[in-house]
């Protein structure tokens, strides 16, 4: 026996699914309703989650129960954010903003260097001639593609002459890259729709077992 709450849930889910799908025809009251409901519920959901997963365990409980007074610093900075509600002191809210931006800009420098720049350069240093002709061909193509692609991103020179030609080859590689990512993503997106249609046909209408 399926519990009643589950049945109601499936009907609710199906109704909302159809509301969203109706958008494909055109904007309409059902979609508008679903959209505003979705925005309201999800904003509430994430705010609540933040309260439980961040505010309580990382600030409130350690501060009030374990007496970790150092946490008064972020607490005070957090309160400074609310100075935005006043006209006179709203500039104080820039302190916490500056701290957050500073920290993450610092982290970003490392992240991009360690995560993208060095590993990508390292991975691209390959022998151009090997025993296997296919490997050699691939490595030459890869080196050529990366170098010409980078040349496309030159800003301080007009793209004319040799640089223009190389940048053009670079664009070809970028286009292949975009096409491949596009084609590659089609599969995932279709799978998602299959999942949704299966929900409608199976869980809701019981047309498919």
């Amino acid at each position: 026996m399926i519990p009643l709450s589950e049945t109601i849930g499936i009907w609710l889910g199906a109704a909302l699914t159809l509301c969203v799908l109706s958008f494909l025809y055109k904007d309409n009251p059902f979609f508008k309703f679903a959209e505003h409901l979705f925005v309201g519920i999800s904003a509430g959901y994430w705010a609540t989650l933040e309260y439980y997963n961040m505010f309580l365990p990382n600030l409130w409980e350690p501060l009030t129960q374990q007496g970790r007074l150092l946490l008064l610093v972020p607490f005070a900075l957090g309160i400074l954010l609310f100075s935005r509600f006043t006209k006179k002191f709203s500039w104080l809210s820039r302190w916490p903003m500056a701290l957050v931006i500073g920290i993450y800009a610092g982290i970003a420098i490392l992240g991009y260097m360690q995560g993208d720049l060095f590993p990508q350069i390292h991975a691209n240093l390959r022998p151009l001639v090997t025993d296997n002709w296919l490997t050699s061909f691939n490595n030459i193509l890869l080196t050529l593609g990366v170098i010409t692609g980078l040349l496309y991103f030159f800003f301080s020179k007009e793209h004319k002459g040799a640089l223009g030609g190389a940048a053009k080859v670079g664009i070809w590689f970028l286009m292949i890259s975009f096409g491949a990512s596009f084609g590659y993503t089609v599969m995932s997106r279709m799978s998602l729709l299959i999942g949704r249609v299966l929900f409608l046909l199976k869980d809701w209408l019981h047309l498919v077992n």
Partner: protein
Amino acid sequence: MRREIPIAICFLAGIFYTLELFIPHRQVLSIFETVRQWAQILIAFAYVLAIANILRVNFHAIQKNQRDWPYKVVLIVSLFFMITLGIFFGGIGEGTIFDWVYYHAQYPLQSTMFALLAFFIASAAFRAFRIRTLEAALLAVTAVLVMIGRVPVGEELWNNFPDFTEWIMNVPQLAGKRAIMIGAALGAISTALKVLTGLERTYLGGE
């Protein structure tokens, strides 16, 4: 003072975190971790600003009887409904009403919105993949090859289709991707450096 202090805070925080990678000392790492958590706590505080922003914008819309104002009521009611459920009625664990609403309203909405992409990807492909120039041809042809090569029917057409698709992904595709990654990394690092040193300070607003 209104500008100098934030710039100093930003500079010090940024330099400190740039050094993180180079200083493996345990005590220093724990300071890094603590301060990073502060940043996350500040982000949690920002939710109050965000909720206040939603309320202000939508109340104004309702007040002015703007078109579609009844939907704004739906939005505000559902927002309060979720927060009240989560914080005052039974929390957010398994089996609560909060959880039920997540699985039976938010999840179907989310996954159906996500599934709309299947339709959009098709209509975008139809419209944009016209072979007008060499660049457009490369874009369209690669997309079609990869798309067909990844489903069972591609294999029916040509035995080595999956391998060929792999080759596209691993060689020419990767080259283009790598060029963008290296360029973007340089751009990101230089933007971050400019922000830290206050060369680019406009994000903090005026006097």
